[in-house]
């Protein structure tokens, strides 16, 4: 991806906002559908919004709400959500070197790491750009939390995001960013390895496990670089 450069060189916060805008629309729509699902799952109005603000991770929230709705219990809901969010461990580690300031500010900035902001913030050299991460993360957070609020309050007024094809926007975003990442054999190898691990584990392992296991493919890529 090309970014308009600032006088100081790299991209700024606004470039992150701009880059995340198309997927922000989808994040808002899915925020609405999470709000609707959470309400029908008996979570009330406030808890879903608090969850979107603090957890800020779509798949884990959908999983937790569905399990609660199905009567699966707190332990099962928490376990499923935590398993789905384990991938933010390696993602947060890869963002660690770019965060600045005292520990609490770095910990707070790290909360803006979600799949989409992390993907958008990738630089060509394999590191993370902090401005892109913060800009994209903030826009996605506003869309996700705002969407959840709209969903719990006025969910019936909004169309199902799947009928608008918005669920197809996410794999398309990741594919577009993946293409930009494949430079050289070792990164291609890491991508193929990650895809194969995910494909192999998806039929047998619970949601979340295939993606966290796929992160191990980075070791293969690093060995061959």
């Amino acid at each position: 991806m090309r970014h308009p450069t600032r006088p100081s060189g790299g991209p700024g916060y606004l470039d992150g906002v701009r880059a995340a805008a198309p997927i922000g629309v989808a994040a808002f729509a899915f925020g609405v559908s999470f709000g609707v699902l959470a309400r029908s799952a008996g979570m009330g109005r406030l808890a879903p919004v608090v969850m979107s603000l603090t957890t800020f991770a779509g798949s884990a929230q959908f999983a937790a709400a569905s399990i609660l709705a199905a009567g699966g219990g707190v332990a099962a809901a928490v376990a499923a959500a935590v398993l789905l969010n384990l991938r933010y461990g390696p993602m947060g580690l890869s963002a660690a070197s770019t965060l600045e300031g005292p520990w609490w500010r770095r910990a707070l900035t790290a909360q803006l790491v979600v799949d989409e902001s992390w993907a958008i913030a990738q630089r060509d050299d394999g590191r993370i750009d902090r401005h892109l991460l913060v800009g994209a993360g903030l826009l996605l957070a506003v869309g996700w939390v705002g969407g959840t609020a709209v969903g719990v309050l006025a969910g019936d007024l909004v169309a199902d995001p799947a009928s608008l094809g918005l669920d197809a926007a996410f794999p398309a975003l990741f594919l577009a960013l993946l293409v930009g990442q494949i430079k050289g054999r070792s990164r291609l190898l890491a991508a193929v390895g990650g895809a194969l691990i995910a494909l192999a584990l998806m039929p047998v392992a619970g949601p979340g496990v295939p993606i966290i296991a796929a992160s191990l493919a980075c070791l293969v890529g690093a060995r061959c670089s």
Partner: protein
Amino acid sequence: MTAVWVTVAAVGLATMAIKAAGTLLVGDRTLPPRAQAALEHLAPALLAALVVSQALGGSGGGFAVDARLAGLAAAAVALVFRAPLLLVVTVAAATAALVRALA
């Protein structure tokens, strides 16, 4: 209602801790070259896995083949023609919506 708030608090605290763990553990230390090399290969590995899981994942695990796959194929075509990100994402959503409307 209490179960809901316990879940919201537990998932929220765990997720915040997971996201912050990397920066709190590493701080401003420079990672050894091998770890840095591995992290530079994390993006292609995880992005490829996200493409697969977001395009083919079923709601409760396993595979589900639906209009998302048509959307992804359209996105791939758009990428071959070097379309900008906004167009790639829009083409994918429009294709999936069209396939669903026709089905």
